Structures are given as structure tokens and as C-alpha cells.
């Protein structure tokens, strides 16, 4: 069994989760603080979660493909995204971002606003408030968001195959490998990859649950 799909999947999901982590938290904070167009912004960010992944992949192709103006612009620097590893990361980011965004936003909204106000009146800078108050007190939600978006990225299929393709050793992830194996009538290989995905996802979700139960003092704090 060629293990490159496993490596590519872990790398793609890992890289996507790093981007998703920062972008999701940033967007969550931005939307929480918005006064106008909050609903619209929320809907746009959440959209990739409810759209068919093929639609997301199709739009990515339209937006960043070689025929798009953005794609042509990038080609001037010899940057081509379609059917590359980077494309797989972008696809995974777009579909997993809503999960990170929504869980982080929920966690931020549960915080008592007076805690933030108090920190401000006590002279604590916005940056320190973010890292030492907002993030630690929302850590259960943020952690859940990381695991959910990572496992979502692990299993990403539709947008990836549309935008990054299914090139063995290059862009073939575990889920696209399963598709290829089934098409080649190799059910044994498909089953093996399917089991790997199930085990990985199960382990990560269980880790998340254990982690939240053991590191979070937060649950007891909101009395």
C-alpha cells in the first residue's frame, strides 16, 4: 500500500487547520464586534458548510483557475494553484473554516462582556486581552473548533477533487484515493483507507473530548 495519500492528507489537513485556526478566530471576533451586516457576514462565512463541496470546488476553480483574472494575475509570478498541493489546502480551508468560525464565535459570545470591559478600564491592551483573557476563557470552544475543522479537512473530498484533482503522490488524499480505488474495483484498498480515516477521526474526536474534560476549568467558572 502506497502511503503517500496518508502523508498528503495529514499535511493538507494540518496546514489547513493552522490557517483555519487563525482565520476562524479572527473572523469570529470580527463578526462578534460588528454592528451592521452581522447576519450577512455570518451567512457568507457559513455558506461553504451548507453548500455541496463540489459547488465550493467549482467556485474555487472559477475564482483561482487559469482562466480567471486572479489566476492569470498569479501566473505572472509563475504561481499556479489548480491541481497542486496548495489547492488541496485551500479547498480544505474553505470547507473547514465555517466549523472553526462558528464554534469560536459561540465561545466568545458566551463570555461575560463585563470581563472584557473590566480589562479595558484596568489598562490591559487589546492584544493582551485577546491572548490572556479571550482565548483562555473560550478555549473549550476553540479546541472543539480545531478538532472539528481538522477532522473535516481530513475527510474533505468534493472541493478537493474539483480544485486539486486526484494526482497520485501529488494531490491524492485518502478520500480521493478511496474514490480512485473503488473506480479501479480495488475494494480491499478502498476499505483500508476507509478504516484509516475512521480510526483517525475517532481518535481525534476522543482526544478532543478528553482534552476538554481535563484541561478546562471553564465549565465550572460560569456560575
Amino acid at each position: 500500500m502506497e502511503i503517500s495519500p496518508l502523508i498528503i492528507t495529514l499535511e493538507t489537513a494540518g496546514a489547513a487547520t493552522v490557517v483555519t485556526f487563525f482565520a476562524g478566530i479572527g473572523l469570529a471576533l470580527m463578526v462578534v464586534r460588528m454592528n451592521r451586516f452581522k447576519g450577512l457576514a455570518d451567512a457568507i462565512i457559513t455558506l461553504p458548510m451548507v453548500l455541496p463541496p463540489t459547488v465550493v470546488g467549482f467556485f474555487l476553480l472559477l475564482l483561482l483557475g487559469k482562466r480567471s483574472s486572479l489566476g492569470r494575475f498569479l501566473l505572472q509570478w509563475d504561481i499556479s494553484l489548480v491541481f497542486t498541493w496548495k489547492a488541496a489546502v485551500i479547498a480544505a480551508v474553505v470547507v473547514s473554516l465555517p466549523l472553526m468560525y462558528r464554534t469560536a464565535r459561540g465561545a466568545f459570545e458566551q463570555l461575560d462582556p463585563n470581563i472584557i470591559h473590566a480589562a479595558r478600564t484596568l489598562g490591559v491592551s487589546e492584544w493582551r486581552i485577546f491572548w490572556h483573557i479571550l482565548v483562555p476563557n473560550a478555549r473549550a470552544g476553540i479546541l472543539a473548533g480545531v478538532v472539528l475543522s481538522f477532522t473535516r479537512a481530513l475527510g474533505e473530498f468534493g472541493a478537493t477533487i474539483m480544485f486539486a484533482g486526484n494526482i497520485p503522490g501529488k494531490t491524492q488524499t485518502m478520500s480521493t484515493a478511496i474514490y480512485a480505488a473503488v473506480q479501479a474495483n480495488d475494494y480491499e484498498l478502498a476499505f483500508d483507507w476507509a478504516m484509516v480515516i475512521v480510526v483517525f477521526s475517532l481518535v481525534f474526536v476522543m482526544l478532543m473530548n478528553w482534552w476538554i474534560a481535563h484541561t478546562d476549568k471553564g465549565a465550572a467558572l460560569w456560575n
Partner: protein
Amino acid sequence: MELTVSIRKQLRSFELVADFAVQDEVFALLGASGCGKSMTLKCIAGIETPDSGRIVLNGRVLYDSELGIDLSPQQRHIGYLFQNYALFPNMTIKENIGFVASGPASERSAKVQENLERFGLKELADAYPHELSGGQQQRAAFARILAADSELLLLDEPFSALDGYLKWQLELELGDVLKSYHGTALLVSHDRGEVYRLAGKAAVIKQGRLEQVHTTKDLFKNPETLAATLLTGCKNISQAKQVAKQRIWAEDWALELAVAAGVPENIRYAGIRAHFLELRSQAGENTYPMEIVQIIEDVFSYLVMIRRQGTSAKPIRWELPKAVWEEYSSRKTELYVYIPPEKIILMQQ
């Protein structure tokens, strides 16, 4: 210490209009909940932004809509004691204090130790806020405010979340905190007792309108407006009109009363506090025969609801010591009640 505030802010159902100055004293804003008093404090602290106006603390302009000045809460150095104390839940008490203390490490740890000691929190230094009682949380919040070197203290309903005895103890301790601010603070409360005991000056705020500033004693003696009279705890209010220079007709009570002060022509209401009525045995000036509507026994007194004999007037609440009422009850004579002219509150609005 000098603070001048003049702000306007449109709120959901009314406009907040607050103009006042505070100088080396405890100043109280007395108002019912939702009247805009907490919003006033939040505008001063920079948590909320007024629509227009000016806020100056010790000559430092914190906010000026015309000059386009709007300092961040961090730049204002104003200590705000929140009703729920708002301690950082992820930090111990020691960390809560240390996190906001400024200066080099040695100075910070000195401030932490000093304030832990001052508020009797040394044993609780490593406890988390949720492990503390309400009173302890309040002390920790004070310790944190003092460690942050703020110039002014804002107290938002500081004792309303606490029960009777604890409330009293913390009220006494507040005196020590105030010394660090040269006795200056801005207090927001709906509790008239709290305001009377703690504040030197006070103003009533009603539907966002800050009424005239008085010394606290004057405000309670002569509240001037209906809102102030109610908020200072007067239970008996009647519509009233002038009948002579020093006489009024109290419509709801069906009583004609002499008053000590001159009656303004446009008088609208009259009030009398429940414990200022006096028992008499015969008719006379401001003394009327009364019938009893209801008798309620309270802890240390009787509350007797009375109205002028033979009328269906609105009952007047009368509060009197148990011994006085029991002595009267045993006599079984007719009830006459005297309303002292100097105790009658007159209101034009």
C-alpha cells in the same frame, strides 16, 4: 479630584442627558433600573461612547465630541467596579491583580502583595474567582482596581448582589477604599439607604434625565420632583393644588393641609413620609379623624393604612413604633392623626 460630565446619548426609548460636576466627594446617581445611570458610568469609563458632549477628569479631556477626542478605556485610568465584579475567571486572585498592575516586575509584585494584604485576601491568593464568596470577590475586585492605579472610582450598584449583613460589612470597608481616592467616587444605586449613608451629593436620574444635584441631606429633605420623592423612599404621594399662600388641598387624601413653606402656584404633588405622621387624640390644625383600612405588623413597627374618616380617599401609609400603636389600641378612642406642616414635601413636577 475633579470630574465634569456633560453628555447626550440616544438610547432605545429615551435620550440620556447628564450634566454634572464632582469634586472630592462621593457623588451618587439615584435611579430605578433601566433609567440610564449605568450607561452614564460606562460613558465616563469609555466602555460606551456618547453621541455628543464632553468629559474632563482633573483637567484631562477624556471625551469631547467637538474636538474629536475619545480616549480609549485603557487611556482613561478609571476604576470601574462592576456589579458582578468581573474578575478574570481563568486567573487566580493573585494573577488577577498582577495582570493589571503596571511597572517593572518587582514593583508589580509589591503592588500585588500590598493589595492582597490590605483586603485580607492573602489566604485566597491562589484561589480562582468562582471559589470565592460574593463579598470576597468584591474585595478582590477592589484590590485589582487599586493595583491598576486608577484616578477615579466608579461603583455600579456595588452592594446589590449581596445579602443584608455582608452588605453592611462591605459598606463599612468601602470607607477604606475611598480614602485611596481622597474620598472621591461616583456611585450608581437604586438603594436610597446606600446613597444616604455613602454619598455627600446626589442627583436623581429618571428616564435618562439627570435632575438637579443636591447635597444628599437636602435631596432627602426636599426632593422637589416626583421622581426624587419616590426614589428617596416616600410612600405617600397625593395630587395637590394651592388654596392659599401656605395651604394646599391634597386631592387623593381629601385633606386640606397647612404647610411650612410658601406654596408655589404650579404645585402638582404633595408627599409625606410614613414615619412623620403623629398620633393625636383630638382635632386641630392638620389633624384629622382617620379610619383604619389595614394594619400590617412589621419587624419593629406597625404599618397602618389610614384614610380620612367617612371618605373613600387613597389610604395613607403610617409607620409607627409598636409600643405607640399598642398603647393606642388598648385605649380604643377615636383616631386623630397630625401631619406636621414642615414635613410636607411639595413638588412642581
